[in-house]
Each structure stands twice: as C-alpha cells, then as structure tokens.
C-alpha cells in the first residue's frame, strides 16, 4: 500500500552537530521526494527535493540521500542551529499527473544550545 514513514519520532542534537533524519517509503513507483520543515503553528516549508534518477542532492547546509534499493531517504543537516528545531516530514509523489503528496509521520528535531 501507499505509506511513507519515519524511523524516529524525536531526534535531539547538540547545537553545531550534524543531524540525520531518516525516512522509509513503501511505494517503489514513487519518483519524486521532498523534505519539508514545519515549525509550530505554521505550514510545511520546502527544504529540498530529489528525483528518483539521483542518489544525492545538496543544498545550503542540507543534503538529501536516496537509496532506492532499500527505499530509504535521509536528510542531513550540517552544523545544526537552534533555528532548525522543528518537525521534519518526508513526502513522496507517486508517478501520477495529479501532484498528490504522501507524507510520513514526521520527526521532531530538538536542538540543544
């Protein structure tokens, strides 16, 4: 069935450390993946995306890795800052022309000063 999940509900890191947030997806036909950040009381904010023809994509302080063999997605945040504290969701888009996103459960990132 369609589902996207995250391995850990909460991740606590020290300011300045690197963070790794993981996500497992079940639909092998999905070809586009997005990481969103959601701060309290706000809407999901786009962080980075990756298509299934790529294994890795880098942004500013963030890297997304895609392992299609095991259907695993991860978000790496370098030098984590207090402003990174939020809930992080991975989302997948199946090969459809409707744009529907399937979200995972979310991981809460807590950054300790």
């Amino acid at each position, binding site marked *: 069935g369609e589902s996207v999940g995250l391995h850990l509900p909460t991740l606590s890191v020290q300011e300045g450390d690197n963070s790794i947030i993981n996500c497992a997806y079940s639909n092998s036909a999905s*070809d*586009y993946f*997005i990481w*969103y950040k959601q701060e309290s009381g*706000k*809407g*999901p*904010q*786009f962080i980075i*995306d990756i298509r299934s023809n790529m294994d890795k994509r880098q942004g500013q302080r963030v890297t997304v890795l895609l392992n299609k063999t095991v259907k695993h997605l991860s978000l790496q945040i370098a030098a984590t800052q207090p402003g990174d504290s939020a809930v992080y*969701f991975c*989302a997948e*888009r199946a090969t*459809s*022309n*409707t*744009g*529907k*996103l*399937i*979200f*995972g*459960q*979310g991981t809460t990132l807590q950054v300790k000063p």
Partner: protein
Amino acid sequence: EPEVTQTPSHQVTQMGQEVILRCVPISNHLYFYWYRQILGQKVEFLVSFYNNEISEKSEIFDDQFSVERPDGSNFTLKIRSTKLEDSAMYFCASSYDPNTEAFFGQGTRLTVV
C-alpha cells in the same frame, strides 16, 4: 518572495454549519491542493485541482467537501455540514506542475464545537 496565503487563520464553527476556507495560490501556479493535519499527526492529502476540475481526491474528501476556483486568484474549500472530527489545520498548496515542489500556506485552524 511569492507565497500561498490562506484566510482566516482560525475559524470556530458550530457542528452542522458550513464553512469556507480561502486560499490565494502563487500566481503562476497551475496545480492546487488541499491537505489537512489533525493535531499531532501527519499531513494528509485531501484533493488536487487542475484546469478547473478535481484531478484526484482522497477517501477523506467525501460529499461534504467541495472545492472551487471562483475567479483567477482564489481557491476555496467548502465543508457543507461540519462534524467534530473535521477539526484540524487545513493547508492549501500550489505548484507549477505536478512534479515540482508544492508550496504550502500557513494554514487555517478549524475548530468545530
């Protein structure tokens, strides 16, 4: 920077009443979406809309729900007869095409009493 705007930010309504949630998508986007998020849970897809018609809807989007693009800028979600379980954050999103990033609004918190 262009953004998706939603009004109102918070709506309280009596059970059985009709509500209309409003959204102004990003101006050059062609695909529009509604999602909802029950407190503490993941974001769930409701409906996608393109070319003035629904392109996909979820099981949640039953006959009590409808969407409309009444003019060139607004996109609305109507719930005909609200139930207690409709209480949630409702997010509007838009994208230029179905395989690029979707941008989300700040959400409308709907409370049904």
